[in-house]
């Protein structure tokens, strides 16, 4: 469509039976693995470091640096854990990737494990997506059959086993230490750090935890070189990434582009906002990142650019809302999600989300007073940065940012005696200008 896209991970999605090993290998798949097995593990870590690849799960921590934290003199086994618990509202990149191209993940797992000298790797997949679990399991089985996994891989002397683990359905298990707890068979609640997983992670052994997309990016770095990868993107946010657009755009979906692309470009690629409507607000990286408005259409979508306008790049889950959407209602829905998903370990998140929902519901119904907005902001202030993990920061973000940009709309609920919007108008099946 246009050369702003750089399809790498998504390039093969439209080929016939793209998820099978023959389809993957016919496009050069597992070539990077053979190349990597001929390299020194340290050289792979170095290449990933040089490429500037930063964690694609949202936090943006340099992947190569994370790998280099693994103490190689530790006598315990080392583990690679892939975080495939994609649960952030709006985020839909890892699941379609694993669905359409599971082998790029498997190949990335093998190369990454080899680099950190792990002989066991785990792929922790969100439990609800059974079809994806089956597809990744099948891909792993194919890889074993082809000799890409198991003992003495391709005569290199390197052994690796990959275990595909299904989560039990908790948002918190996307938090890396809660994921480790879940993987060990315990309740998914975050662990106290330090010790960090690089020192004492899974089974108290050195562990690297990376997002699916981060690991899946590794084969391309090995195959094409870190210079190739670093040539894309911006100064501090290098490479490509999958941007998932959802909501009120004509053609929602995954768009793989260099970091630093703008929403304006992406909306163009997605065929524009749905007919007859205008952008009202959007999330740059899922509901946990403070929402932005049409003022921010030209903000470069890289880690620094989005941070510069007070939000976070996150998972590049761009949820697009047009002017038919009530921001109070949207925020309430998100807050209900966080209340439901709070693990309960720490007080501010557990009790705070319980209370936030109640205050927001009343506001949405037009009950309360303007001082309730200050109460909400004060609650958010008491929650964000006070909790055990980042879940509660995410819970506060949509409330704080929506009040920042749409305070008048909150007050309109109070003066109107309820929501001034027609809830049906924001639905995708609504006819233009429906109802009163």
């Amino acid at each position, binding site marked *: 469509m246009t050369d702003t896209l750089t399809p790498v991970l998504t390039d093969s999605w439209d080929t016939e039976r793209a998820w099978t090993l023959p389809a993957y290998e016919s496009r050069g798949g597992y070539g990077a693995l053979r190349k990597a097995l001929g390299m020194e593990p340290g050289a792979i870590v170095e290449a990933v470091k040089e490429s500037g690849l930063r964690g694609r799960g949202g936090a943006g921590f340099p992947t190569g640096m994370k790998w280099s934290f693994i103490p190689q003199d530790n006598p315990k086994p080392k583990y690679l854990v892939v975080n495939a618990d994609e649960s952030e509202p709006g985020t839909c990149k890892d699941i379609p990737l694993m669905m359409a191209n599971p082998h790029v993940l498997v190949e990335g797992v093998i190369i990454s494990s080899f680099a950190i000298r792990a002989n066991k790797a785990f792929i922790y997949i969100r439990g609800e997506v059974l079809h994806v679990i089956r597809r990744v399991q099948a891909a792993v089985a194919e890889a074993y059959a082809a000799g890409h996994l198991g003992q003495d891989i391709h005569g290199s002397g390197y052994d690796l086993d990959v275990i595909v683990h299904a989560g039990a359905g*908790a948002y*918190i298990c996307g938090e890396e230490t809660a994921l480790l707890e879940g993987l060990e068979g315990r*309740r998914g609640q975050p662990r*106290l750090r330090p010790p960090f997983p690089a020192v004492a992670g899974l089974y108290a052994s050195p562990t690297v935890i990376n997002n699916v997309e981060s690991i899946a990016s590794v084969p391309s770095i090995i195959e094409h070189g870190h210079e190739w990868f670093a040539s894309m993107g911006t100064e501090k946010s290098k490479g490509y990434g999958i941007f998932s657009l959802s909501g009120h755009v004509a053609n929602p979906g995954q768009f793989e582009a260099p970091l630093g692309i703008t929403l304006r470009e992406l909306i163009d690629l997605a065929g524009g906002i749905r007919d007859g409507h205008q952008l009202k607000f959007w999330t740059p990286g899922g509901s946990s990142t403070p929402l932005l408005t049409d003022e921010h259409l030209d903000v470069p979508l890289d880690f620094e650019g989005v941070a510069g306008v007070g939000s976070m790049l996150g998972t590049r889950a761009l949820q697009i809302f047009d002017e038919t959407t009530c921001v109070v209602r949207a925020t309430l829905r998100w807050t209900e999600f966080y*209340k*439901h*998903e*709070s*693990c*309960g*370990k*720490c*007080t*501010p998140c*557990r*009790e*705070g*989300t*319980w*209370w936030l929902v*109640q*205050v927001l519901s*009343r506001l949405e119904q037009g009950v*309360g007073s303007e001082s*309730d907005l200050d*109460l909400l902001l*004060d*609650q958010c*202030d*008491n*929650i964000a*940065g*006070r*909790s*055990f993990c980042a879940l509660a920061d995410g819970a506060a973000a949509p409330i704080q940012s929506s009040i920042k940009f749409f305070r008048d709309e909150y007050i309109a609920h109070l003066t109107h005696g309820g929501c001034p919007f027609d809830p049906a108008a924001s639905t995708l099946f609504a006819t233009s200008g429906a109802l009163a």
Partner: protein
Amino acid sequence: MTVSTGSTTEAATTDLVNLTIDGIAVSVPKDTLLIRAAEQVGVQIPRFCDHPLLAPVGACRQCLVDIPDAGNGRPFPKPQASCTLPVAEGMVVNTQATSPVADKAQQGIMEFLLINHPLDCPVCDKGGECPLQNQAMSNGRGESRFSATGGVKRTFPKPISISAQVLLDRERCVLCARCTRFSEEIAGDPFIALLERGALQQVGIYEKEPFESYFSGNTIQICPVGALTSAEYRFRSRPFDLVSSPSVAEHDACGSAIRVDHRRGKVMRRLSGNDPEVNEEWITDKDRFAFHYADAADRLTYPQVRDDDGSLRPASWPEAFAVAARGLAEAGASAVLTGGRVTAEDAFAYSKFARVALGTNDIDFRARPLSAEETSFLASEVVLRQGATYSDLESAATVVLAGLEPEDEAGAIFLRLRKATRASRTRVISIAPFESRGLQKLGGQLIATKPGREALALQDLLGHGDYGIDSSSVILVGERLATAPGALSAAVEVARKSGAKLAWVPRRAGDRGAVEAGCLPNLLPGGRPVADAAARVDAATTWGVSGLPETAGRDADQIVAAVNAGQVGGLVVGGVDPDDTADPAAFRAALDRASFVVALELRESDVTRVADVVFPVAPVSDKAGTFVTWEGRPRPFEAVLSVPSSLPDLRILAGIAEELGTSLGFRTVAEARAQMEEMGPWDGERAAPEPVQAHDVSDPGVTLATWKQMLDNGRMQDGDDNLRATARVAVARVSANVYDALGPSITVTGERGSVTVPAAIAEIADDVVWLPANSSGRGLLAEVGLPGSTVTLKGADE
């Protein structure tokens, strides 16, 4: 609360970190958590989940502080939980006392904690001593914004049972996880955990397995809100009406510090005291909940003498003293059985009474199977010695348990060993018939030993490089080892050859004190051997008498035999239950055969029912005294309640002695203590050891192994039904082969009778069966036979 850094206290003091808290410079040992460093400058940071003896968790977030300099010149951007953050050199910390940020953060957390809390302090047992209540006052806001904005609280049905004893009001819970962490980290008992998530998270149990813990009461004590209560104490009193007195637990030889809370002369509850050297902050459920025995309906409250018609009638104290003295004088040779519950002062009185007033060495504190080997062992190896201490257990590389099941028989030892094994400092090896749950919780190694082969197993320790017994090891021998011939001698030999520490662990609180006080046929007080003329002279001089009986006396079994043989006529019996003795039938026969029996008892018993004179004695709550721990550590305590009519054994013995024409020289505990101090320990030669050669005395048939479970049919648990309901049920532990052959219910028959109990599979030899000693009927000694004796098994349905 205890700040415990294990055995590294000496090293830690040399390794100090300097930081500034609220503008005050302070130096604390490396790795100290901020929350405790702040205590050093007098700032109490509010907290719920934090507990010094539990691993940090950082869950409640109440202890947030502001850190403008983390020690590296950079601030923490957000307030930090001071309960999880160790100090760093040059760190600058501002607590709620000086930082508006920290204060607001704490106020915010407190507000959240209270939104779903019922605020039912007026009807809550914790009200008045509640950390949530107190800290809500000190660090919270006066008005609730939650209820002002029409907030709806989460509610739960009240209360649910965690066990028969422990009840949970989920609404009050602040989910600090102290209880679940205690159970996991300290006691090692599973099946209490957090369930669900978000605001619906709650403490719960696994429905298919009972929460069986001997230490569950500690969770109630460390609960920072009123969520956990005991069925025992719930709604019984308010803390501000209670008077608290420190005391020492009387249920085992651990000497655990306790706090007794009483109101208008009645004990309402007992809590753990805090003694880092002994029980830290934990006690067993028996120490906590078993105290109603002293209020039982059959409690004796006045002296009685046997009337001409054979019935007991009330008597005045002077009359009872006179009748007792006359009866003993007329009975000829008399003997004294004190029981193991006596304080050291009372034991001293019994010891002196026997020697001075009755002129005999026929005295024994042991009301259980015993041996001459043990008598010699106590005199040569135990008395006056501090073989090992709790901290030795913690620092030892290896601890050997022989004839001792700490979880059942010495709870504080069990917890200390668990602490040591969890810290990977100590390895536990147990010479026992099977791997008990307690040993599993210690991660211990079993040396499977058939009863009777303990001596050989002990000797084998030296030969096995794997066991690594050396001078950094501790060998704990239980009192049960007396029934395994040669075992105590073997333990002495192993300790001597390896340099390992050796300690004797009895079951009862008064046992060790009675050894020290000379309630043995071969020992006078202070470790003076009866056989040593100089020691006798020394004791006689202090007592102001011309001489003491010279020949060693009879032990408890020999006394019983001598009474039945007509050689001894008079018996003075303290707290002895005939069914605890080696031969209950013989003991009962002796009571009948004796021409005169004086009983000193708390409650009506099989002894008082046949005694000629019955004296009521004071329970521990009513008298001062001293228990001596298994370590040899004196644990003095004062009377909790002031009950003038409640007399200690020593006052009664003094009264009888005076009627017999001699004076014990004391009538009060203070006077007895003074005389004990005057007498002091013996500094001469110890009694010579009389080792018994180790040999296999096990029987070729099926052998009975047994010990008493902590919670069983013991009389001192009477009246505490909720506690008793948490006892483990009586099961026969047999091998899988035996179970398969005989089925789910087994009849065990010994020379004295048989019992039928459910069977459970254990990793135990096919020719050994284990039964709890006193969890069914009158107990195994009365109904089956001696430990180590031969029994037959058959399926109950056959």
